[in-house]
């Protein structure tokens, strides 16, 4: 099934949960200097996931089963001008 993650389409096997996407995004960005700096300073990477326009809490990642056409956005909810 095809899932959009930050507007890019990716192929995922049926039955995949949102946790799989979270894991992949974290793996992809683990060496990102921003991620490393945030983890070093604050202990967490500040990534927040939005599933079909709904903000998702970390304790929900495993329970959300993805469907074909789902849209996932991840962001770091910072403000700074």
């Amino acid at each position, binding site marked *: 099934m095809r899932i959009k993650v*930050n*507007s*890019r389409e990716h192929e995922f096997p049926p039955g995949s949960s949102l946790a799989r996407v979270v894991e992949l995004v974290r793996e992809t960005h683990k060496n*990102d*200097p*921003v991620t*490393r*700096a*945030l983890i070093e*300073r*604050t*202990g*967490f990477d*500040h990534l*927040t*996931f*939005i599933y079909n*326009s709904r*903000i*998702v*809490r*970390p304790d929900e990642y495993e329970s959300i089963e993805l469907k074909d056409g789902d849209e996932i*956005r991840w*962001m*770091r*909810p*910072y*403000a*700074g*001008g």
Partner: protein
Amino acid sequence: MNGVWGKILRVDLTGGTCTVEPLPDEVYRYFLGGAGLAAYFLWRECPAGTTAFAPTNRLTFAGGPMTGLKQTGAAKWTAGAISPSINLNADSAATASFGIAMKATGVDAIVVSGRAPRPVYLVVEDGRARIKDAQGLWGTNAYEAEDAIKDAEGADFEVVTVGQAGERLVRYANIQTHKKSFVGRCGLGAVMGSKLLKGIAVHGSRTCPVDDAAGLRRLNQEINRRVAALDAAQPEFLRFKRVGTAGATELFAPQGNLPIKNYSLARFPGGERNLHGTEYARRLQAKPWPCKYCVMQCHNLCQVETGPYAYKGKGPEYESFAMMGFNTLVDDLEAVAYACELANMYSMDCISLGAVIAWAMECYEKGVLTQRETYGLDLRWGNAEALVEITRRIGERTDGLGYLLGEGSKIASERLGRGSADWAVQMKGQEIAAHNWRAQYISALNYCTGVAAGPNHERGNSQHIWVADVRLPEWGIDEVTNDERWSWTKAPERNAVFHDYCNVINSSCHCKFHEFRGYTLTDLLDTVNASTGWGLGLEDLRRCGERITTLQKLLNIRYGWVREHDFQYPKRFMEPVPEGPAAGRIPAGLDDAILAYYRVRGWDEGGRPTAELMKRLAMEEYAA
């Protein structure tokens, strides 16, 4: 008309008159409100040759169709005028509750012209306006003035004031409200001071009708809940957000986006240790200090209980923190916070102030300024005491150095000479903000081509594509790769989109920072439509943005902009840093990118809107 009153308050300080005038519906449909209205009044009433401190300059305070809608972020309002730093059109936005209260008086904008014969303040209450004596307030700082006006008029008034820097025409003086929000950049506080206008107090009880009240309630509930849920999804983040925007240093430092030592370095170990978010929260005892209706709560109240930098008040925002701390190598957190609050009280923009002080420190380092010229002040890099003292001297403007630095780094370097222009990081007379062009080249393009308020990081905040992962999918900015930040791929197009986007936000009067919380253009569009009933589509909204940008461009041409000004970027733009995340990066090819931007905009090779563009935007009458 719904969503706006269709009325403005005209204040003539020379004649001492205040009258309410109608404003046609088509003006709002073209320019929305806020920044658009400010530009409209300059276009209509300030011919070529009008200068910033001339009585004929129009200083406009304006809300928009989103002002006061009880949606998170709907507390914004905008002021605009011809700026004394860039001598071009300029606008700036602020929050707290002044805009909401102004709208509640029954007008969309207050347009101030003339110059009072003696210091005055203005009181506006439910359709009635009075000009009152302010001679007893002249010489007080902006906070003292606000307190005094509230004592005189009532604590439920919302007030804007200027401090000594505004009175004494520091070219980057700002206007403050509620001791927490500032009309910064571009020196509008000096325009206010030049009119001998110390403050404006507003209070009203009127509710502007909206087109779809039930729809608006549903939108407000859904959006407010969604934005709040984003923060609540990460409980750890809720603790961290007390830091407010200053926490952005954590995000920006690893990207090479910080200004360090007048933009000449990439690393600042002392700053990395002391000037970061977790220290800010702890040592400044930061607590949220939200604007009305806002669930993001990025402003904070800070307190330093003891020592020479003891204060209780506004915590520095990212830009203030970066420019006054990292950019001057002062890593004393309390001193930086104190100096920023001192600047606030004098009413000075901390971005320009930090840049000017850094310029002066570099002059001192290079022997161009000596202790003779500084009257004994040791302006070495990182000297916290000197940071605080020079802030005071510029705000007071009573000695030669304070006066010179109050002119901004462009004029100061022209007067000082000795090669000091080489390290004045400014364009068109305004200092560059705390987004390093080496981290994303589009920032350089934005600084060169911005028309709303000179080189301004929030009048085209395209840096947020990379530093904060902001996307505008409705207007075609979606897939972006990290490598593109150091190329000109799509930079002209993206720059144009963000210029128009910022104009739409600052004219409808919503808080742009909600883009960091997933607030979308569709949210904005739906809200504007529910408020006004205009039935706009996304492309219509883009046209509004284009019209406002085009009007600003026409104004700049009228007030003396020439093509060469866009290419007179600071020498430092092309000086790489040897280490760090942006090591070796310089925006080579910037000149071609500027020309490409002109083409994208529909401007000619001279950077002027073409007749075809004016026709497409149905703005032929504005072309003259």
